[in-house]
């Protein structure tokens, strides 16, 4: 039961970019389209689950004084793996995400979950926690990406055209300032929804 709770926590109670307000760099930078957000989210999920699992296995072996160094070595290795796989099988996505793939290493969600959760809890809970937060992050990024793409380019997942030929794209939304405004709106909506609940 607690495993299930660890999983669902990441999906709503501390959904990463909106509730934890961590990992904002990719949230702002790569969400110009829904599929970019989805790709980035899945890459982060993979790293998060793998690093959570490994850190949880090693939690009793890693001395306290070098724990951050150990976590970073583990996280960075998984990030390089993701980068290699993406280059091999999803080259277009690799070109679009560019520098933000290696930057997953310094994504605060991953180190944050390693430090706050995986280093203290058994492996199953850690995997559930990683999956939950990873999916939460993926869903958030996809929603932000979809919102910006629909308004900014009039398409969804780069394929489905939503509006007729007379649609004038609101290209402000796919530019960096649009990302800030969009994130602000979503944070506000999340606050309204959850007011009185927490």
């Amino acid at each position, binding site marked *: 039961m607690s495993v299930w709770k660890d999983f669902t926590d990441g999906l709503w109670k501390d959904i990463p970019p909106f509730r934890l307000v961590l990992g904002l760099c990719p949230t702002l930078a790569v969400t110009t389209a829904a599929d970019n957000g989805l790709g980035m989210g899945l890459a982060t999920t993979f790293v998060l689950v793998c690093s959570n699992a490994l850190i949880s296995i090693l939690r009793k072996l890693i*001395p306290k004084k070098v724990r951050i*160094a*150990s976590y970073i070595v583990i996280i960075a290795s998984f990030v390089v793996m993701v980068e290699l796989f993406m280059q091999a099988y999803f080259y277009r996505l690799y070109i679009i995400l560019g520098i933000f793939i290696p930057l997953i290493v310094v994504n605060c969600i991953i180190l944050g979950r390693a430090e706050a959760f995986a280093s203290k809890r058994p492996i199953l809970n850690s995997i559930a926690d990683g999956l939950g937060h990873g999916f939460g992050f993926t869903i958030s990024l996809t929603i932000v990406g979809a919102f910006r793409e629909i308004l900014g380019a009039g398409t969804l997942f780069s394929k489905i055209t939503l509006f007729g030929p007379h649609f004038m794209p609101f290209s402000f939304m796919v530019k960096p300032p649009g990302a800030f405004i969009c994130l602000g709106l979503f944070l506000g909506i999340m606050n309204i929804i959850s007011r009185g609940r927490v």
Partner: protein
Amino acid sequence: MRDIIKMIVVLTVISTVMGATLSLVESITREPIKFSKIKFVKGPAVVAVLPECENDPIQDYKEGVVLEEKAGQKIIKSIFPARKNGKCVAVAFEVTGQGFHGPLGIMIGVDLKTGKLTGMRVMTHTETPGLGARATEPAFYKQFSGLGIKDVVLSDQGGKVDAITGATITSQGVLGAVKAGLQLFSRSKDKIMGAVGAG
């Protein structure tokens, strides 16, 4: 003291294991990465310079074909064949030239029977936008289709290619590279034929 030894051992072991895993992943993905780089970087140019064909030239490409060996200097090219009715009709390969600011990466397609160009695209360059960079525009590259070695000369020197206005050096760089490519093709036609199985 025991603490320090434990820290050193743990970090060393973690780094070694992760390093070994990474090198394993790298060796698995090396070939697919090479292929997707060719497909997405050179692929569009390859398809553009070759005539219509029934195979996938990128899938069928032959890597590292030694075309010439002179005084220890080897000329090695990757060759993309285009097949029609089971026979190889044209090949594409990359040539490099010197532009105004830096190297030009050019893909040319050559008809196997006539030795004439089926197309030309400038893939990579660092030329000035609006001047030399116009070598990537249809107005320039379309002139190359169907030209033989003798025609690949600027039109004011008796050839069939109009230079880009204000970018004579770039134009000449492209022409020189294409011409060298055609000469290489005619010198080593047999080896190319052998490599793509057109014998």
